[in-house]
């Protein structure tokens, strides 16, 4: 079938372009930063890391290898991981709800995580929980909110899409109200809270990457496995059931997995908006709605997008850092408008 092959070819082309762009972004992210290393120095320091002795240690600052390995690289990887998480969760939500405006924060995940993180920030003495106190509480908050949303939306064993959305709005608003209350109650942590809310990868570390990555990877694999079923769900749940898909179970599983994947990222990065909404949308405009292609392409695009955004965030006003969420919103919005004008419709 010619056009089917054409679609597959377009998919492969897109993936190749994205991979190349990602490679370029990786290199770019590696060489820029507040530390002011030149690309040559970065290159040499990297070589010095990989095979000590092969390069003259005086050709780069002594702290350079350490900086690259313990600071920049985990941050880069975290950006990739978070980008993958948000983009694929977003694509999945859009498929499950058959709505291109759905996004990973729909089911209360963002509000729950925000409350959890704020609690951790304000009552920091709250834990000799250490560095993992905040991500743990943020994750717990997200899970709690999502569970509440699901429970509230289930009547007599039936959970319809519309009641889920309404429940998400209700729970989200309630949690946001709690968040606002917490923010009003504190003066000196307010800045920290707000900066967390806007998303940031400043405190990325290998430990955090090690915790987030398997969660996100597992989530991605599961969502990808459900891709064919998700395609059928696009025709409505009753039609999907007529074609052999257990729609209820599929929807429930996907929502849980997508929410948990989002929570895993958000716990470590704060609320980075826009990626989960726009990236799958943009990819769909380029290669169509088949989830078997949409999910991997979204993952790649999400990783690329967030990496570039974070690199921009930490260099544009160096040494001050802009929260990543601001960059994603500023950059993504106009880009999406442009894409929409080029190809009308989704």
């Amino acid at each position: 079938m010619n056009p089917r092959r054409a679609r597959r070819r377009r998919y492969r082309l897109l993936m190749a372009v994205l991979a190349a762009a990602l490679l370029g972004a990786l290199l770019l992210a590696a060489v820029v930063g507040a530390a002011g290393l030149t690309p040559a120095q970065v290159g040499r320091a990297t070589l010095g890391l990989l095979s000590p002795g092969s390069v003259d240690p005086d050709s780069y600052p002594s702290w350079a290898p350490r900086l690259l390995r313990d600071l920049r690289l985990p941050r880069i990887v975290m950006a990739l991981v978070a980008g993958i998480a948000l983009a694929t969760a977003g694509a999945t939500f859009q498929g499950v709800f058959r709505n291109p405006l759905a996004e990973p924060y729909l089911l209360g995940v963002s509000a729950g995580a925000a409350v959890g993180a704020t609690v951790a920030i304000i009552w920091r003495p709250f834990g000799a929980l250490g560095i993992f106190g905040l991500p743990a509480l943020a994750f717990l908050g997200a899970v709690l909110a999502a569970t509440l949303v699901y429970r509230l939306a289930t009547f007599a064993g039936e959970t319809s899409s519309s009641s889920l959305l309404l429940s998400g709005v209700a729970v989200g608003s309630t949690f946001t109200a709690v968040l606002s209350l917490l923010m009003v109650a504190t003066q000196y942590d307010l800045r920290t809270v707000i900066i967390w809310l806007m998303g940031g990868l400043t405190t990325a570390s290998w430990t955090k990457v090690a915790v987030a990555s398997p969660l996100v990877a597992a989530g991605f694999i599961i969502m990808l496995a459900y891709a064919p079923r998700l395609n059928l769900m696009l025709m409505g749940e009753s039609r999907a059931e007529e074609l052999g898909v257990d729609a209820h179970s599929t929807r429930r599983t996907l929502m849980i997995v997508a929410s948990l994947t989002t929570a895993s990222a958000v716990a470590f990065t704060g609320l980075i908006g826009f990626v989960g909404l726009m990236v799958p949308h943009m990819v769909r405009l380029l290669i169509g709605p088949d989830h078997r292609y949409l999910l991997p392409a979204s993952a790649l695009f999400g990783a690329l997008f967030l990496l570039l955004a974070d690199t921009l965030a930490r260099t544009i006003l160096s040494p001050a850092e802009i929260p990543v969420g601001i960059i994603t919103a500023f950059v993504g919005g106009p880009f999406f408008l442009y894409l929409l004008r080029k190809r009308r419709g989704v």
Partner: protein
Amino acid sequence: MRTSPTPTHPIPRMKPRTLLLGLTTILGVVALLGVVALAGCGGDATTTTTEPPSPTVGEGVSITPTEEGAVFPVTVTDDNGTPVEVTARPERIVSTSPANTEILFALGAGDRVVGVTSLDDYPPEVADIDTIGDFQPNTEAIIALDPNLVVGYSGNEEALQPLADAGVPVLIMNAASVDGIYADIRTIGGAVGTPKAAEELIVSLQMELEGISNTARETGETPTVFFALDDTLWTVGPGSFVDELITLAGAAGIGASGSSAYFQLTPEELVASDPDTVLLPQTVFSTVEAFAADPRFAPLRAVTEGRVYLIDDTTVTRPGPRVGEGLLILAKALHPDAF
């Protein structure tokens, strides 16, 4: 409410809002820098400011910077209780808060400081030093400066962890009281190799503070005062650094009966307590009218009798070696006849 210590920088009050606030934050930081830069200039007739401070320490305090008594390696304990070993005299020091920067300069280690925040403003030499961030220190920038010692502030722990992991001594300082300042001076002095100068500075400050405090006490008056932290009636309470200064300045902060170190008054509470004096920070209020013209505060005696003063709160809220100046500013505002 919070019981943790004050940060050294005055923080603009923000109401909870959505993500758009981020831009305001950046604009706010820029504006803040501008205001802080202008703060040193003279004000209107209604302001009460002290004379420009002397280069390294406060007026009336003089020590001879010396490295007598320096011992290396030395283990000091920072305000988090962490023992930190400094193996050799640090040649490259990074400071992540203006108060600590002032201490470093006061101890004569200023020439070894290679990194400060963009909010640092004293002494004037800091203008030539590389910045490493504002409220949040930028870890990369700090690493790039290759420091041998980082003097950090409470809250920076996570950002400075990579440095600690790499073996750079990191001190987390957190002065919440006058005694806390003394302790910090001592700790930092030990870490940079100026222990004797540190002791001298402490003694000198103690004398300065005692002098001012005695003069204030001799007036026999203990006026009540409302110290505004911002324009939404947040004030200082027991356990806060500023409240301690107010007490030393021979006055009673109306927040002293409050529940925590920092809390928010309601307008009724303010009017009911009817303080003798109202002190407004210059960083938040541009004129006395901004407060006095508010109809809710019209019944206050301080308003009707003209005892609402703008003060340069930089040294009042920054627990550093210029604490004496800060105390003097307070004392002058509270006992205008005695000072």
